[in-house]
């Protein structure tokens, strides 16, 4: 049963992930992305990392991807710019993709990266949220604080960049000139 669920979720995750770059419309791509993230969250759950599964759904599928969708809609790109892929680039990237798949095969399927341990029995600490809290405020105190400042930077940055420039020097001709140089 768990085996089946794994295969199902894995296929779901991988295929929907594959649809992200392959779908014509970015909106569809974003939708597949959400599916993929949810699939990943389910895989987390299979690995008994329930807290992370929730976070994954909340943050990734919930917040991040909604933001993406929102932006895609806002910019209204799909109408103006369709997927035009250069054949050469497509061929190259497919070859690259296959090479990477081969590498994955080489490492994990063929098992060069092994030996792979069997699934251990016993309690899984990651399944308990309190462990996260404990780790974050003891061992990972410093990175945790830094992360706070990372978010601060992101906040300042987003606000600053998105704000309309007030009285800054705008060299209207500069862009045209720059394009020619």
């Amino acid at each position, binding site marked *: 049963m768990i085996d089946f669920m794994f295969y199902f979720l894995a296929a779901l995750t991988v295929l929907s992930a594959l649809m992200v*770059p392959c779908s014509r419309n970015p909106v569809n791509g974003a939708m597949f992305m959400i599916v*993929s993230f949810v699939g990943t969250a389910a895989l987390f759950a299979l690995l008994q990392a329930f807290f992370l599964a929730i976070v994954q759904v909340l943050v990734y599928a919930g917040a991040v991807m909604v933001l993406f969708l929102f932006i895609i809609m806002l*910019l209204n790109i799909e109408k103006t710019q369709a997927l035009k892929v250069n054949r050469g680039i497509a061929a190259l*990237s497919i070859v690259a993709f296959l090479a990477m798949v081969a590498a994955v095969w080489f490492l994990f399927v063929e098992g060069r990266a092994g030996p792979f341990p069997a699934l251990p029995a016993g309690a899984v600490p990651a399944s308990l949220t309190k462990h996260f809290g404990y780790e974050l405020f003891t061992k990972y105190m410093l990175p945790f604080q830094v992360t706070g400042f990372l978010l601060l930077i992101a906040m300042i940055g987003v606000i600053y960049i998105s704000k309309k420039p007030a009285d800054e020097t705008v060299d209207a001709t500069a862009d045209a000139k720059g394009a020619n140089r």
Partner: protein
Amino acid sequence: MSIGLNAYLTVAGLLFAIGFFGVLLRRNTLVIYMCLELMLNAANLALVAFSRYNLTEKNPMMDGNVFVFFIITVAAAEVAVGLAIIVQLYRKRQSVMVDEIAVLKEP
């Protein structure tokens, strides 16, 4: 239970490869950016899988899980800043296609 660590890692590897593939293939900045998130996601999956499978009596293996937590946070922050830049650039250029945003180059 016959699902081994390598199965999860294969999934993670494929996700990573797909993400990279998307970056290589697409011209749309937003899609590229989504694919980059996919790559981070692949790393997350691998981390969780490693944490689960490498668990032993003496080694509780919380590091990987906590790391995933951090990665998700970082990814969110990165996405926010990135989208802000893309939006601002779109306002200027009316395009999100990478080959149309190429003023900075060798003359």
